[in-house]
């Protein structure tokens, strides 16, 4: 919390509907991230996750509040913040190389063709698409298209990556490999990443911090959950970690019940100081971590499982 690389300060988004009624998607939303941190946002459909991401990207403007990146309030889009779109958003009339080169030549306007091509090629190689440079998006599988999207985002060497459910349209196997790759690249390059996901395991595997959002309209950022799993975690043995189920159950519990009832149960919620939750060791349980809350402890069927696996 010392280095606030990204700071979302009291943003609101309102839409004026028919008949002068305004819908507030969210208001007074505060959120911050440190440099090199990987954050995942989890919340139900329609709670405003994409809206937050678009505001961060500069594609959308908040009705109120400001976003500060690296000490400067943002206004509009920037080559410092790359976006990986859910629907990959490749330009179908350009080849793989053409799509990545388009980004490269947009960032470095003075580069000649050869230099642009060489730079783009590096990132195509990085995501494992060597040999497919001259294919058009229609000739690629869903996973390969998203790889191109990742290469395009990385090729402009951004200060941060914004990902809106980048893998939700992919099959489980492809999703797994791409998660591995994104994690490897982010760790290697020290990228700051902000990802929206529906997949709890994806969040546990990738994120350092998980932002939990309540249901809209009038969604709030309920808690920030710190990932207790070690940094060198592997995707396949994630579930063996003693804290895995405690963390997973905490998130699922939030999604299933607390995301609906949060506002009513927590009237003193301060959106400027969102609680940072450390999920405790299974033998201690979460209840002993923050305030004791025995009713919640009882509703954790998953708690018995870690003991069998370790």
């Amino acid at each position, binding site marked *: 919390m010392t280095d606030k690389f990204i700071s979302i300060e009291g943003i609101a988004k309102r839409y004026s509907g028919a008949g002068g009624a305004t819908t507030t998607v969210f208001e007074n939303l505060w959120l911050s991230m440190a440099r090199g941190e990987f954050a995942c946002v989890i919340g139900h459909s329609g709670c405003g996750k994409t809206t937050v991401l678009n505001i961060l990207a500069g*594609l959308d403007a908040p009705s109120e509040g400001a976003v500060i990146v690296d000490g400067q309030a943002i206004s509009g889009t920037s080559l410092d913040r790359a976006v990986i779109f859910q629907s990959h*958003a490749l330009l*179908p009339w350009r080849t793989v190389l053409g799509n990545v080169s388009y980004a490269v030549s947009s*960032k470095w306007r003075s580069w000649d063709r050869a230099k642009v091509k060489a730079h783009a090629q590096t990132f195509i190689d990085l995501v494992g698409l060597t040999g497919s440079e001259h294919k058009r*998006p*229609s000739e690629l599988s869903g996973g390969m298209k998203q790889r191109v999207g990742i290469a395009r985002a990385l090729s402009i060497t951004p200060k941060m990556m914004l990902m809106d459910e980048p893998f939700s349209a992919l099959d489980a196997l492809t999703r797994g490999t791409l998660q591995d790759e994104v994690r490897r690249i982010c760790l290697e390059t020290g990228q700051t990443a902000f990802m929206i996901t529906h997949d709890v395991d994806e969040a546990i595997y990738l994120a350092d911090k998980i932002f939990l959002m309540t249901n809209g309209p009038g969604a709030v950022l309920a808690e920030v959950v710190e990932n207790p799993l070690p940094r060198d975690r592997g995707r396949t043995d994630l579930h063996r970690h003693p804290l895995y189920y405690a963390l997973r159950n905490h998130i699922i519990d939030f999604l299933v019940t607390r995301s609906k009832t949060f506002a009513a149960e927590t009237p003193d919620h301060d959106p400027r100081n969102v609680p940072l939750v450390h999920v405790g060791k299974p033998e201690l349980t979460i209840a002993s971590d923050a305030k004791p809350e025995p009713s919640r402890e009882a509703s954790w069927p998953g708690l018995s499982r870690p003991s069998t696996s370790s």
Partner: protein
Amino acid sequence: MSTSLRLRAGLVSIVLLAAFLGIWHLATRSTGTTTTMSPEYAKLMGLTATQGKSAMPGPLDVGAKLWEHLKRPFYDNGPNDKGLGIQLAYSIARVGTGYLLAVLVAIPLGFLIGMSPLLSKALDPFIQVLKPISPLAWMPLALYTIKDSSVSAIFVIFICSIWPMLLNTVFGVASVRKEWVNVARTLEVGTVRRAFTVILPAAAPTILTGMRISIGIAWLVIVAAEMLVGGTGIGYFVWNEWNNLSITNVIIAILLIGVVGMLLDQILARFTRMVTFPE
């Protein structure tokens, strides 16, 4: 499977054509001399009366005449007797000129309207009123102001081909996928570069579809326009041959109008395919 389907379809086409030509031939063949009459009267009545020959030419007459035309497409024996090639060239040149002028106006204007909601709303009533006007209704006004019949024909072509292109360009530009525009925005691509690198390629299939509709309409209208203004062109040829009572030539002209129209359409269809990329 698809090749055999194509083969069978081709076979059916040939059978249909042969049947059509056969029926045509039977329906128009001579029925033999029917009445005897004085030579002067027979001369007046023509072959129809003297030999029982149908006034409608048969496929063999048309074929022979067509062969004659194809052998000498570019002869020029004065204003009322020019080769079919020359007449078609006049028509194609008029269509080409009017059409190209329309492209030069419709596509940039369509781009502006498509990118600006203000212009789009402001110009909409004008377009809505001007679009349904038959292009030939402009003819008297064109003749009065321009005073040159050939240029007036070009103007009519311009007016009739501008609307489909303009409307399709506006629609294509306005409905470019938002995420493609967002890609350009996140890459800080300027407006002009964005117009050429994202919006133009994304809207190209829609624009070319409009251009294809336009060339079809232009080719429909040129025949009527040339019938009105006269002088040269395939439309004038049809009218002139009707006045000469040469149904054979009229049929040949109809056939050629169809073939040229098909070729123009196919050229545009090919261009459309060239700029269309599946996602």
